[in-house]
């Protein structure tokens, strides 16, 4: 095979829900075509009810398509085979309350056919990796929302899938957890995984995604790389010490003399989430183990990345 098989290819997907017995239909996804290449982090955006979760469920074979063709690594999504290399974290996940974190991940590992010999190590690795090792002996029923998202990520990763589908992994998660989740996603990308992620929090998406698509009323509105969509290559922001008005005028004159223009002067403000992050210590994060994020050990020896949220503040254009 010369042309690489895309991780996900969606052609003309339409999904109708019968909402009344008389046959009135609701079109949740309307003639959607998308391709997610292997190794990309792909963001699926859209307002509530725009059909993001529906699309994901069709990709996973949980829903049947009304029309169109959906393939995962080339296999039609309604075949069991298509799910072999996929990990899925559903939105607002909820797991068997009566199992402990370890038991839960172990259960899913066995369902996915992780060989018995590797089972123990694999489960432990992945639970450590999402930073839940301290809470892993507790019943899942006692977990907080953020911990549920983490254990959900663990079960999605336990069989080392090539494609990971995350439906709002940060819903209900605090900024610290969100930052950590973003970090984990970037690490997955470094390991060469393909990630499909939906979210309302555009800032996060921006931080981690290579490409995004925006849905509205089930229709694809735009799709493209982040650079194409939001990069403003004809502008730049400089951040300098506070300048007196005279210096500003001088600077403006200097710029004009060289053929440039000073478009805006603003007081840069730290984003609130950064403030939050700088004030709230990571080690004290309730329930989760200490040191999550900055020193997690991915299964491969990929180097740690610094937290993307630590980037410089953005001036408003």
């Amino acid at each position: 095979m010369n042309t690489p098989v895309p991780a996900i290819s969606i052609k003309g997907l339409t999904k109708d829900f019968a909402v009344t017995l008389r046959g009135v239909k609701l079109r949740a996804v309307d003639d959607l075509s998308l391709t997610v290449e292997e190794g990309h982090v792909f963001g699926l955006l859209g307002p509530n009810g725009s059909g993001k979760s529906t699309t994901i469920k069709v990709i996973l074979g949980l829903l049947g398509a009304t029309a169109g063709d959906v393939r995962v690594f080339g296999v039609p999504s309604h075949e069991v085979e298509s799910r072999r290399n996929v990990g899925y974290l559903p939105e607002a996940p909820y797991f068997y309350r009566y199992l402990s974190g370890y038991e839960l991940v172990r259960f899913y590992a066995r369902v996915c056919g992780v060989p018995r010999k590797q089972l123990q190590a694999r489960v432990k690795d992945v639970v450590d990796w999402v930073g839940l090792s301290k809470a892993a002996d507790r019943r899942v029923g006692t977990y907080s929302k953020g911990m549920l998202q983490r254990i959900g990520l663990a079960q999605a990763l336990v069989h080392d899938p090539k494609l990971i589908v995350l439906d709002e992994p940060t819903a209900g998660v605090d900024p610290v957890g969100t930052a950590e989740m973003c970090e984990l996603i970037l690490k997955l990308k470094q390991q060469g995984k393909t990630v499909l992620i939906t979210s309302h929090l555009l800032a996060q998406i921006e931080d981690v995604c290579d490409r995004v698509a925006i849905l509205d009323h089930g229709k694809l509105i735009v799709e493209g790389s982040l650079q194409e969509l939001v990069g403003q290559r004809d502008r730049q922001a400089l951040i300098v010490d506070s300048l007196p008005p005279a210096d500003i005028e001088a600077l403006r004159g200097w710029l004009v003399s060289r053929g440039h223009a000073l478009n805006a002067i603003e007081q840069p403000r730290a984003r609130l989430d950064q403030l939050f992050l700088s004030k709230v210590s990571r080690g004290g994060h309730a329930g989760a183990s200490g040191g999550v994020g900055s020193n997690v050990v991915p299964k491969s020896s990929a180097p740690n990345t610094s937290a993307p949220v630590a980037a410089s503040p953005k001036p408003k254009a």
Partner: protein
Amino acid sequence: MSAVSVPFSFSRLALIASNTFLEAVRQRLFNFLLLLAVGLVASAQFFRDFNFGSSELKFIADFGFGALVFFGSALTITTTAQLFFSEIENRTALTLLAKPIWRAEFVFGKFVGVFAVIGVFCALTIGLMMALLWHREGQLMTIDPEAFASGRIVRYGDLFIVGVLQWLKFGVLSSIVLLIATFSNSNLYTVVTGFFALVICHLQYLARDSWSNVDNLMLRVLVQVLGLIFPNFQLFNLGDEIGQGAALDPLLAGRVAVYAVVYIAVIGGLAVYSFRNREI
């Protein structure tokens, strides 16, 4: 890449079954068995006041079977619906079915898990009943040796077989409830419909017995069809005379067992068929 490269796996089925069983255990489902046991022992104690003689054993057996049939049916319907819908309503089915597993593995896994739960219930109830009978029979034998001139009256082997047949009947009931659950939207609806199905299965013989008396042809056909759609649960009613020492014909027991097993397979298969396209 061919579609069959993820084969149907009995180990995954077993995994889902054992997880279902574990859920029942951890939800303390079996606690109520303690109450049942206390009830049975207390009733056995109560019968002593009446000087029933050797017929006291009939009373113990009748109450044991009554409890087995009644609570077993209730337990089967509610646990099947509950253990199925806990997956749907808690959206754990979403995660599970997004794994490389067959829907048939899920449905039969659920069935086997529930069937095991009911099996434990039947085993404990029948076991307790046998223990009570054995104990009391021993006492009565010393009190009234004449009534036991030819040894023990109760046939414990037959008692065990009847227990197994009841278990199989609950298996049929469980598969019916599972079939209902695959197209129903709620736990409550499933439980209510399951109870209706149970009553029809128990009473369908009445309609069948009297169908030849029905004049209206349409009605006659309808009654016949109803008798064919629903399994005949009255067929499993073999325990009534065990307490009085009546023997169980092995051929009869074998036929009833075949009847149950075939029904479990057919209805289970239909549940898979109906669940195959269910939107999760």
